[in-house]
């Protein structure tokens, strides 16, 4: 039983890590309808920039601030150069543009900082919490808890931003209907620039967490692939969906790996999440929290 709880909690916490990446997708999709495949590269870019600045002897807060500024500028730059000229194109064209963007971002970040892997330390060790493992014999990583806490704070900040501020109202209006938002005088392109900047910020947070977990290396770009099932499970438009989806995917994936894996030869984590997400989709084709699709001719 203890082992089950350990696996379950570990899965939930791993799921939070997926959610962190998925959040970046959701923010952009909500406001602009762009399925931003480059989110994984943004995560990589952010983590690599931060760790490279640290290794050059920068103060951690200064490095953080500079990386944040870089991400915000990058986000706005992407909006300006890639997406603004592509307004009104079909979703697949936008998707392809962001896939093209992944090539550019990966190339640029490795040109700037080199391609060797880095370790990253934030001062929170990735070790089991002692009293939990002593008392209940359950191993839960301290760092995972920290990541979950960060995700919680991030969601709270995003919730306040979207629900309580003037920008947030504009964001939701744009998400609801581009044309109506334009008609009431909301500057669409400013909003998109803000959205991309926020996505850059989320990517930075995700990059730091994943960087500590797996090291800062090229493989970070694949976190995007891990976030996709979370995304379709939760629905493309829902921040809550990204979190709940992450929890479901993380827990079921870990449980399946431990209890089902041995029977089929292991390594099922590469596709299991997608199958779980597919099963959910068969019941709710727009994801758990996605907006209901109404077909009209």
């Amino acid at each position, binding site marked *: 039983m203890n082992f089950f709880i350990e696996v379950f909690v570990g899965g939930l916490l791993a799921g939070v890590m997926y959610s962190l990446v998925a959040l970046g997708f959701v923010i952009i999709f909500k406001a602009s309808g762009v*399925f931003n495949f480059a989110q994984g590269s943004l995560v990589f870019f952010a983590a690599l920039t931060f760790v490279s600045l640290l290794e050059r002897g920068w103060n951690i807060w200064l490095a953080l601030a500079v990386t944040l500024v870089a991400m915000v500028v990058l986000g706005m730059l992407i909006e300006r*150069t*890639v997406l603004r*000229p*592509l307004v009104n*194109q*079909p*979703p*697949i*064209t936008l*998707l*392809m*543009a962001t*896939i*093209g*963007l*992944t*090539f*550019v*971002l*990966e*190339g*640029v970040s*490795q*040109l700037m900082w*080199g*391609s060797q892997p880095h370790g990253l330390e934030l001062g929170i060790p990735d070790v089991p919490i002692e009293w939990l493992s002593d008392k209940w014999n359950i191993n839960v990583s301290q760092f995972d808890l920290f990541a979950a806490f960060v995700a919680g704070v991030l969601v709270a900040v995003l919730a306040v931003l979207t629900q309580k501020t003037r920008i947030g109202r504009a964001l939701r209006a744009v998400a609801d209907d581009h044309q109506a938002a334009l008609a009431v005088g909301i500057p669409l392109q400013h909003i998109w620039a803000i959205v991309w900047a926020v996505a850059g910020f989320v990517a930075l947070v995700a990059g730091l967490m994943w960087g500590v977990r797996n090291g800062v290396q090229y493989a970070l770009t694949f976190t995007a*692939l891990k976030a*996709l*099932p979370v*995304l*379709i499970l939760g629905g*493309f438009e829902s921040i809550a969906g990204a979190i709940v989806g992450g929890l479901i995917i993380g827990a079921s994936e870990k449980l399946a790996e431990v209890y089902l894996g041995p029977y*089929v*030869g292991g*390594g*099922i984590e*590469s*596709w299991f999440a*997608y*199958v779980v*997400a*597919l099963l959910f*989709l*068969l019941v709710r*084709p*727009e*994801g758990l929290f996605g907006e209901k*699709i109404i*077909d*009209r*001719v």
Partner: protein
Amino acid sequence: MLYREAGQFKSTYAQDQQIFPILQDRIGMAVLLVIAFVAVPLFGDQYWLSAILTPFLVLALATLGLNILTGYAGQLSLGTAAFMAVGAFMAYNAMLRIPHMPILGAFAIGGLCAAAVGLVFGLPSLRIKGLYLAVATLACQFFVLWAINRIGWFSNHSSSGVITAQRMEILGYPIDTPAAKYLLTLSVVAVMALAAKNLMRSETGHAFMAVRDMDVAASVIGIPMMKTKLLAFAISSFYCGVAGAMYAFCYLGTVEPEAFVLDLSFRVLFMMIIGGAGSILGSFLGAGFITLFPIFLNLASKSLENALGIELSHALVSNTEAVIFGALIIFFLIVEPYGLARLWQIGKEKLRLWPFPH
């Protein structure tokens, strides 16, 4: 002056409905086929035949397959490489396990098995649409590669995972030179492209397009949704499966799961978008562009090295190439979102009037 259709009258329906109604197009096509079938194998050198033209043709076929599904039937798929992998491995197994299996038969078996897999993974398309479906097809990509890696039967329990493809032979003629492989690929691709062109002119093709343009409207006017979507998946996967088999047999010479990773799916998708979604010609243009472009970049960096007289590091070159490649794709999407096929169409319109402006 040259490309004018004045005076070409059509007096029967058959004439009106032929694939190339304009005489100049027919001549151009014939010339192109003669060049491809006769001149290229005679005069092309080994490197061009085996490293550029063969993969170009194979990938054009895969793009054609994806185009049938995504460009014509509107079902976005990111699992192309998985269908290709099924084709490659089943063709290998057909050659291995069935005595006296002709190579074309093996390709067909590979294609049919891929079609069966495509049917299964096409089932969610009845309920899921758009980008959700695209992500769902990723399940196919990962699951198929996992199954091929895990289940020993596919690779005949080979320990390394890399299997040499069997020798190919047609009616006693060995297919082992680059020119022979090129000709085999070209023949298969030409026949299948013709079939695709005709399919898209048929009732089935029109049903595909109706589903793409608006599926609710299509079902209202009586197009069977389930049959049409699944058929699109099956036909598309068949094309991809044959392309995968040829990718392994005619181009790589080995059958290995690593050749069919997600990257290949994306590359084929790029080819379709750059070439033009919903266009047979576009499949070829896109495949040609994406195959040739990295080679061109490579040559450019080589000559830059020579001109500057310095040795550029490998990482620098490959990263710069990635940046340029990505930037160019974005540039293309911005400038011509309907792809190279659209440029070709515009060019033809202009050519009709040339040298007059109106």
